[in-house]
């Protein structure tokens, strides 16, 4: 095999790995048990972000805040490294905005339903990870005629 052909083979192998690796990484996303989390308020009270509306039917956001003591069970990944994401699936009543602040254990962030955001990356040194998160939900008032449950979850990407 000539030098150029070896280079070609190496390039082909690297390319193949590049293609295969993301599929392998996606397969290792696991929902984390957060059954130890506790909400400080039973429901998220949604109020108009602005008391008055705009001249057109835009900007009719309702916002609500809640504080949750998050406790996630990361025992299966103890002494390993991991990437933890906060995911807000697409769900009713429609597009949902979510932003949060933390006490420092996790990263603050924001997202729109249908996405996830990294809240921790690094070694897992304790069986449980805890933090107090203040969530702010935002929803178009036209979509919020009654109380609706909204779910989110923590996901672990191993490796």
């Amino acid at each position: 095999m000539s030098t150029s052909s070896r280079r070609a083979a190496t390039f082909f192998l690297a390319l193949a790995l590049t293609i295969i690796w993301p599929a392998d990484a996606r397969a290792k996303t696991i929902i984390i048990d957060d059954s130890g989390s506790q909400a400080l308020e039973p429901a998220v009270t949604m109020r108009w972000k602005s008391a008055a509306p705009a001249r057109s039917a835009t900007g009719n956001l309702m916002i609500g805040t809640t504080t949750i003591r998050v406790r996630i069970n990361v025992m299966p990944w103890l002494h390993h490294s991991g990437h933890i994401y906060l995911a807000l699936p697409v769900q009713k009543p429609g597009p949902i905005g979510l932003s949060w602040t933390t006490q420092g254990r996790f990263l603050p962030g924001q997202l729109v339903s249908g996405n996830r955001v990294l809240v921790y990356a690094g070694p897992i040194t304790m069986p449980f990870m805890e933090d107090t998160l203040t969530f702010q939900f935002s929803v178009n008032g036209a979509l919020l005629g009654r109380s609706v449950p909204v779910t989110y979850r923590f996901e672990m990407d191993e490796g």
Partner: protein
Amino acid sequence: MTPSGRGPRRCRETLRRLIVGAVLLAAAGSAAPYTATLTPAAPQEIYLQVGVGAFTNNYDAGGQPQINTTINTVSTTLAVGVVGNGTAQAMTTNSTAAQSYWDGFTFCTVPAQLYIGGFFRTTGTTTAAAQVTATVPAALTNASGNSIPFSQISWVSSGIADPPTEPFPSGTFVSGGVQTVGSMASNTWNESCWAFSYSNTVVAAAGTYTGAVLYTMTAP
């Protein structure tokens, strides 16, 4: 290490991996997404301003609507020679509301125009619009008991930099009754400026004639 010695060790590693895998599966199986219930609280709000109103600040600066109990007047004074000659007489207001509380924009011309505006907020899919009605007495009266039909008073609706269509269109009072003077789609700001005029087609005795119109907003 002999090949025969690798067998048991490989088995132990496989077993350990299986156990770890079982733990991971168990952890994944017990996980459930956290649920927060979003509850709209006191979602209905209503605001109607006829003449002067009250806001803590302009809306686009975070202002909040307030209550203003002021009753504004619209009036005109006719010279003796023109009473009942059919020439409409412009009326002016004592309202000082020229700026929109939405953004502070000078929307009306005072004292020639009277500001009328407002909004209603409700959650859920938009249904019917809120209606603004005027409860109008049959006539304006003076101290001697003489009267002028309220239908002598009309208004032309406009607004600086506004499109031709107004949420509170031009109209004429009915003489006694309740009439709709405008409507508001939910979650939108609506405003107009009214220039009143007295049609001056009746000959009335000299005097000061007054009457009060009550504006009511009804949201679905």
